[in-house]
């Protein structure tokens, strides 16, 4: 197992799979959050353990990503420790609250099937699995306490700033990627507005593509040939984004009611205040992401030229 995960490919596949699962949880968690907001938080006490449980996969992704990007053993030990304690504490609170809140709200017997067909038992099982993972890792932490004393020989590859940025970007990206996959469950091929739905659905995939490109670029910046590939993919992705936005704009000009007729299920919270906030958020997010990538790319080119 240890040998398998020394391979970069195996790590990347694991991260991708975890990110895919996390994206579904984040998108669905957001879908659950909307009724809580529109009910002025009245259901928050009943459902907050569920919301936290839905957040665990993206948190796990982020911690695993940090773990594999930290070379120092002491750092890695600290990451596992934080992850294990968080899981144990979070699930230690969530499980009794989940049982209590669901019992008091719905009664003490039966399957209620509100969120999932087996709710609340499937969510309870999921929470117990998370707790078991947390306890297992915590035991490992206690067994390997000497690891925290390992001196720092290699400077950490990533700065704290990058970790924080990654946490935000991955959470938003997961949400939009989840929306992209959700589309396959909810779209109808007979929708007369399908020509305007395609660019909106595809746009949800773009943050993930740009995140992938950013990660690829960060690893390959020292190689000239791969830098060229990065430049090309940046141009392609930028062009694709603008093409999708233009396509959407034309579709909205043809049917100004496109969003409310066929896309309101993608921007639920936005429509609680009458505007598709999510759509604007994704545009702003992409704009900032591209800006950061372009600035970094230009900086690097300047540095390379200067060195020559």
């Amino acid at each position, binding site marked *: 197992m240890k040998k398998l995960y020394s391979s970069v490919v195996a790590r990347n596949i694991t991260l991708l799979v975890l990110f895919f699962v996390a994206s579904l949880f984040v998108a669905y968690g957001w*879908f*659950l959050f*909307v*009724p*809580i907001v*529109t*009910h*002025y938080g009245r*259901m928050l006490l*009943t*459902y907050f353990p569920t919301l936290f449980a839905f957040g665990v996969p993206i948190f796990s992704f982020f911690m695993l990503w940090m773990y594999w990007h930290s070379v120092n053993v002491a750092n890695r030990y600290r990451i596992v420790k934080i992850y294990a304690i968080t899981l144990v504490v979070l699930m230690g609170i969530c499980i009794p609250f989940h049982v209590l809140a669901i019992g008091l*709200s*719905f009664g003490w017997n039966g399957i*209620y*099937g*509100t*969120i999932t*067909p087996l709710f609340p038992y499937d969510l309870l099982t999921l929470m117990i699995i998370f707790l078991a993972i947390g306890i297992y890792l915590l035991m490992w932490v206690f067994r390997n306490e000497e690891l925290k004393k390992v001196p720092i020989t290699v400077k950490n590859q990533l700065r704290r700033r990058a970790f924080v940025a990654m946490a935000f970007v991955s959470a938003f990206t997961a949400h939009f990627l989840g929306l992209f996959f*959700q589309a396959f*469950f*909810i*779209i*109808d091929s*007979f*929708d*007369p*507005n*399908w*020509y*305007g739905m*395609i660019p909106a659905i595809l746009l949800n995939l773009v943050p993930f593509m740009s995140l992938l490109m950013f990660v690829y670029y960060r690893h390959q910046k020292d190689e000239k040939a791969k830098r060229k590939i990065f430049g090309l993919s940046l141009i392609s992705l930028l062009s694709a984004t603008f*093409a999708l936005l233009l*396509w959407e704009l*034309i*579709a909205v000009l*043809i*049917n*100004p*009611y496109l969003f*409310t*007729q*066929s896309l*309101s*299920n993608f921007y*639920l919270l936005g*429509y609680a205040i*009458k*505007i598709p906030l999510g759509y604007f958020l994704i545009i702003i997010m992409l704009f900032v992401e591209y800006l950061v990538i372009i600035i970094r790319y230009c900086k690097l080119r300047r540095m390379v030229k200067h060195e020559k």
Partner: protein
Amino acid sequence: MKKLRSTILLILTPFLIGCSNNTTAHLDLHAGTYIRNLFVDDIDDFKICVFNDLHISVLTNLSEEIAYYEKCLDSFGGRDQVKLIVFNGDVFQGAQKSQVNRFFNWINSLDIPFAYVYGNHDLQGAYHSNYIDQKLKSLNNSLLINPLNDNVFGNSNYVVNINEGDENSSTLKWQLYFFDSNTFSGVSYDIVHEDQIAWYEKQQANLINPVPSLTFMHIPTEEFREAYDIIGNNVNSGYDLSGTGSSWYMGESISHGYQANDLYETMQDFGNNKAIIVAHDHVNVTDWHYDKDGGSDDNVIHLIFGMKTGRGIYHDKRIMGASFYTLNDSDDFDINWINVPYNADPYEITPTDLVALGKGAIS
């Protein structure tokens, strides 16, 4: 260059096909296409139960809520008396397919015809925009008519004719109009569109003998605000007993569409419509007897905010339940607002009760 051209063409092809599909002429269907017929022995028996703003979401405990809806249905003389159930918009907000299916299967199992009106939130759920439509069309007690690709904007513009007699020999006594008041226009609420008003004119022109009608839609028209200004003098409750006979309690400001339209004027011109019954504002209950053109008394249109049903999103427990409308042979109708608490017996809300809820007085 050739490669670039083919790439651009490849990208544009679906879009161009889509545009051409969209610009296909919409069908101008015969007025009769939008009509359902119900038959009763005696029109005086015809009782309609109206549910407003259920706001069923993914987090709603439907078992509990369905028990409550049944309590509402039984609250005014029992469900056997109810000949029609109307859902006046926003039944769902943030629901998923399983909730939609369960709710509709329940309502269909009651064996009472039901009419569904789309609200501004019904399409916001984990299902595609035609899902509710497809589900409703598959149920034998659903009265919804929504021809696809017609030239009438929205999803729930149809008419239910109430006939006295049976299918072989009957007389048309009342008509019930159902409008889709649509969702949003920019950052405001939408209105009933011009083509929907033209559709109403067409329906009225198609009538051999004029009959009284009630209109159901979700979002109020601007006339509701006018009535509040003119009759209510902006006092949040009151009973204009010696004047128009209006009664009201306004727990919130009126969220009407983004601009005025001609629906009310058109209805006054034809002179058959007795009431516009809306939902949308959960804590408003009104019965304004409003005559915009100031003409004869028989040109009054009741502007009614019905009772909000259930605890979905914001509500006022003092005015939460169901509204009942009983049609009379004398071209008139009765209104009964029933407050239905979850854990107590239902009771009727009178105009005097409405006054007591606010700062107004009986005049």
